[in-house]
């Protein structure tokens, strides 16, 4: 199979696809930016964070990790803005706001 530089979906022609549109590069789904699905984003008041990690456990995208201060924060490349973290946070750290704000 021909070695090629990864092209975006919009750049690929039918000739660039592997047989059966099979994906031969393991793990390349991590390049898929789900963050642009978002219409709301989380904002944080980290003074309230007790570092319980409930938001990380509930996040369906698996994109919440502790930042340098140990507070839990979503990776915005993947965060779809579902708001589950805000709903589950027991101390009210997270507030969802419209993406445009």
């Amino acid at each position, binding site marked *: *199979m021909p070695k090629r530089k990864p092209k975006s*979906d*919009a750049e690929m022609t039918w000739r660039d*696809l592997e047989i*059966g549109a*099979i*994906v*031969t590069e*393991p793990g390349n789904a991590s390049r898929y930016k789900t963050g642009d699905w978002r219409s709301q984003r989380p904002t944080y008041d980290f003074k309230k964070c007790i570092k319980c990690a409930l938001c990380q456990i509930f996040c369906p995208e698996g994109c919440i990790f502790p930042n340098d201060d140990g507070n839990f924060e979503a990776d915005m490349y993947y965060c779809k803005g579902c708001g589950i973290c805000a709903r589950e946070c027991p101390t009210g750290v997270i507030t969802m706001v419209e993406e445009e704000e």
Partner: protein
Amino acid sequence: MADRVGIEVSVALGDAVSQANVDVVAAYPITPQTHIVEHLAELVANGELDAAYIPVESEHSAMSACLGSAAAGARTFTATAGQGLELMHEVLYVASSMRLPVVMAVANRALSSPLSVWGDHSDVMAVRDTGWIQIFTENGQEVVDQVFCAFRIAEDNKVLLPVMIHLDGFHLSHVIEPITFPEQSKVDKFLPTNKYPLPLHPDKPVTMGDFAPPAIYPEAKWAQEVNLRASKETILKCWQEFANIFGHKYQPVESYKAEKAKTLLLTMGSFSETAMTAIDKMRGEGKDVGLVRLRLWRPFPFDELRQAVAGAETLIVVDRALSFGGPGGPVCSEVKAALYGEAKKPKIVSFVAGIGGRDISVDDFESIVNKGMTISEKGSPNEYEMFGVRE
């Protein structure tokens, strides 16, 4: 020269699959396919065939198991009929779209209701657009021959598509015929080991059947279409090589006494042999009639069909399936579409006959030809006729 034996066609088919050294058979029994998979199960259980036989719980599962097997690079076979083919419908698209070389025999059967276990092409027509290569057979020898060809075509790395071998339920599946089996050494040479290029393997992981947003889906489908159309070249090469080694010649469109005939009959499947006898009879009576038979149903042999009917004044197409509320028999619709752009084309008359296992005899074909000629003389009809239905 290999032995010629009297054998039931379904059993012969199973023996041919065994000779093709299949690795995996996943199947669910359904009339009139049952004897095919029963025989294969027996061969595996007796230790005569070194293969995995997966007795699944439905046809949907049968085809799904075949996907996994073919994706792992195993030579994979299944068989079904009628309702069973309908139940595996959605998975058929996955097999062709993921380019998995599964081979399936379909003992063509009518669809419910009323319940009918007998033969017609309703099941085929419902899976016409699933992206499989589809080959029709007319007798037991052709069924056996096409098993070897089907694996070779499917697994060819230029093709990598699933192949259906169609044999009419009962009319072909359950008859005992004299069949010549090729010598094993010749089969082994004709049919090299399956080398699927991107098999599922932990050392080199791949993702099959992943998700495609609108930005890439049309490209994926066009690649599939280009590939299916291009497969005809490999099919022709395979059949030529098969003829060189085994002496039986196959073509996408086959003619019988059709050269320069003013009136042509067009058929597909086992009743083509009855039609040949009818042609002999009518020729004997001085009628200028010939026969054209479709062997390759997908990819549709446009050029070969146009060539085969060029010069005819009337073309009478006999379908073995109904297209409810549609333009007539499905084969006839496609034949009409294939000829529409031709400057000179025959008048085309559509008949639907022999559905649900109703026998179509030599005399019936003669009546169809006579009726067709009368309809053609009156003009070019848009309607079709359901032959032999009691008023």
